[in-house]
């Protein structure tokens, strides 16, 4: 599956779509493949504040538990409630299903956010 344009990626296999002061965060195709069938998602609360490096959500597959981390400081303004009903959407549409949207000042991005070329190189190295 090709990676959609306009996303940034992390070494923990999250993706981030930044549009002005809003950042949608999800997990990558690679992450969902590694996890296998996602059966449970624990979402943050609207209004919750996070700092870069915090876990904003927990994704559980049949075999594994994984945290979703943010590389940005921000406040939760939206959560993807469709995932509560159908966690398997994370497997079938990883780039279409964000976990949550943060609001903040994203004018300067940390270098932990990779562009798609850098993320693909990271994957190729076995990241």
């Amino acid at each position, binding site marked *: 599956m090709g990676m959609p344009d306009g996303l940034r990626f992390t070494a923990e296999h999250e993706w981030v779509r930044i549009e002005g002061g809003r950042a949608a965060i999800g997990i990558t195709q690679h992450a969902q493949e590694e996890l*296998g*069938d996602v*059966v*449970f998602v624990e979402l943050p609360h609207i209004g919750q504040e996070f700092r870069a490096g915090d876990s904003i959500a927990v994704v559980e597959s*049949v*075999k594994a538990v994984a945290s979703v981390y943010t590389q940005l400081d921000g406040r939760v303004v939206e959560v993807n409630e469709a995932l*509560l009903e159908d966690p398997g959407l994370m497997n079938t549409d990883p780039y279409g299903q964000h976990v949550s949207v943060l609001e903040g000042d994203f004018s300067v991005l940390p270098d932990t956010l990779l562009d798609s070329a850098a993320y693909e190189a990271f994957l190729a190295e076995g990241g």
Partner: protein
Amino acid sequence: MEPKKTPLYDMHVRAGAKMVDFHGWLMPLQFASILTEHEAVRESAGLFDISHMGVMDIAGPGASKLADYVLANDMKTLKTGRARYSPMCNEKGGTVDDVLAYKLSDAFLRLVVNAANTGKDLAWIAAHNREQAEVIDRSDEFAIIALQGPRSSEVLRAADAEARLPTRAYSFLPETRLTGVGCMLARTGYTGEIGYEIFCAPREAPCLWETLIEAGKAAGARPCGLGARDSLRLEAGMPLYGNELGEDISPLEAGLHAFVDMDDPGFVGAEALMQPVRRRRVGFVVDGRGIPRAGYEVLDSDGCAIGRVTSGGYSPTLDTGLGMALVPNGWADGKLLVRIRDRQVPANTVPLPFYRRKQIIRGNAHGDA
């Protein structure tokens, strides 16, 4: 140490299976998806490579007596051609291993044991071999394929219309042929479904595996990995050694009373098992959202820690989080809390198993288990 490979390893890799190191063996975790494989076994059939399991033969005039001495279940009434599940205990009543004993004759029993325990079991039985029986490790001489699910007989028939099949639960044919391959064919398994376990020579296994996969396609049978094997046995309430059983967990604490022959307490560990048990195994289903996992703390309804989850997970068939835990024997509240990260998730204890397969009723006789 380099992990070991089963005779089917290359086929699994070619099939795109996700391989994992399981107690020193490279085994398929999943082929397609654990949920798909789990459902195939509940609705149709699944094929498992369980060649990592240990196999040991006890042979000689004292074979049955030795088996009855080292195993907690009754081996005296076990008939030739039948298999029986049994814990093997240490002197303190803890569990050395849990095994399936197949009786080929009065002078010949075959034990199938947990892969990680094979060496320990051989040494344990040798140390208690007061019958001077022969105890032979035959683990490398067998590949084992488990075919499990309501349509497993149909799959075997599709592979070989002439094949003789063992019909009763826990019965087996010590030497038969399946698609021309010599094998021991048993009506045993670890999924809560009707099923077979096929023991054949390692060099014949790849061909037999391929034949069964092909023969099963029409019925919707699939190759399955250890992921589904674990979720299936969890739903069936079956203990896993290292989780519900261990050197410091007695089979009575694990609730395996039906498999411990206290009427004839001449076996190793019997004396210790006469003491009152301190803990017991319970099954529980979470009330709401959350997936309990092995090691999570279990609290009573007042919030006091009373034990830990021994196995837990998501049940595909029941679509809920559930698990098993060891709790104090006197505790009988029925309501507990499971600590899942920073939450305390309520759960209710339920009788085991969580899942029981649909019985096939013929006249007034139940279908075999």
